[in-house]
């Protein structure tokens, strides 16, 4: 696996990006801008479901109208994240926090698979009845927790150092 990562980061553009004094921080800034767009809006959607924000507006209105911008933000985060990750693939691969971050992304996908059908497609129903069920609140709380964990794992990647080679 490590040799595959070595190969990956030696691709022309990956090497150029890693060594660029300008492109690397620009991609990282776009990664963070996507986080602002995506993170802020996912927080507002989750807080609405939890009954803590936007309580005067319907849940479906908040969720459905923010969805295209959340997708835009997520696309920006993931695209830039991939560019950054591939450019330093061999450096990041031994890092346990990098693997933790990838695992958490897998948990995010599982969260979507579980709750898309059981919660996020029933929001109009919640607005009609005026009741937000427990599993919807659980989905929202888990989502907030997951995304904060992802930020934390991402930040810790930068602080882990490999043990000195003997």
């Amino acid at each position, binding site marked *: 696996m490590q040799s595959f990562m070595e190969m990956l980061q030696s691709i022309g553009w990956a090497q150029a990006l890693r060594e660029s*004094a300008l492109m690397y921080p620009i991609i990282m800034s776009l990664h963070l801008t996507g986080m602002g767009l995506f*993170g802020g809006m996912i927080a507002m959607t989750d807080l609405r479901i939890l009954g803590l924000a936007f309580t005067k507006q319907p849940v479906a209105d908040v969720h459905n109208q923010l969805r295209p911008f959340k997708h835009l933000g997520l696309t920006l985060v993931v695209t830039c994240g991939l560019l950054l990750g591939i450019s330093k693939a061999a450096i990041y691969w031994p890092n346990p926090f990098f693997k933790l971050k990838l695992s958490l992304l897998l948990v995010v996908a599982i969260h979507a698979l579980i709750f898309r059908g059981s919660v996020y497609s029933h929001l109009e129903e919640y607005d009609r009845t005026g009741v937000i069920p427990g599993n919807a609140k659980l989905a929202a709380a888990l989502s907030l927790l997951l995304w904060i964990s992802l930020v934390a794992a991402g930040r810790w990647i930068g602080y882990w150092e490999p043990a000195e080679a003997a």
Partner: protein
Amino acid sequence: MQFAGYDPANYPLNQNEWSFPVTEVFHIAGFALLIGTIFMVDLRLMGLGMKRQSAAEVLKGTAPWTLLGLAVVLISGPLIFLSDPVLYLNNASFRFKITMLLIAILYNWTLHRSVANKSNPGTLGVLVGGVSACMWVSVIFAGIFIAFV
């Protein structure tokens, strides 16, 4: 530039390996809340999103959370700054970031707010929302570039 009597080596965030990154996580989560909620108002002002609600309604719904995000960045930011004040003050990107941040805060809680509360923000809304989004993005870029200049 030096500060008499201040030694970052004794600063609590420099004493262990976890408190600095924890503070950074708060800073990132806080700015996502701050800027993401402002983007929502900007998108409404520009007529791009949240169109089933008025700009005033989007502002009303987001305002307490924008303020919470601001509080989190204004607490975590100075805590990060104190880890090495001389380094930050001598950094051009840091100085630009703080300048833009102060202008953006002032703008957001004056002009931006009053235009969003207008019954029909119209073209002025498009302009005010667009300028707002650009200012906040510039703060993010300047923040990242601190580590690269």
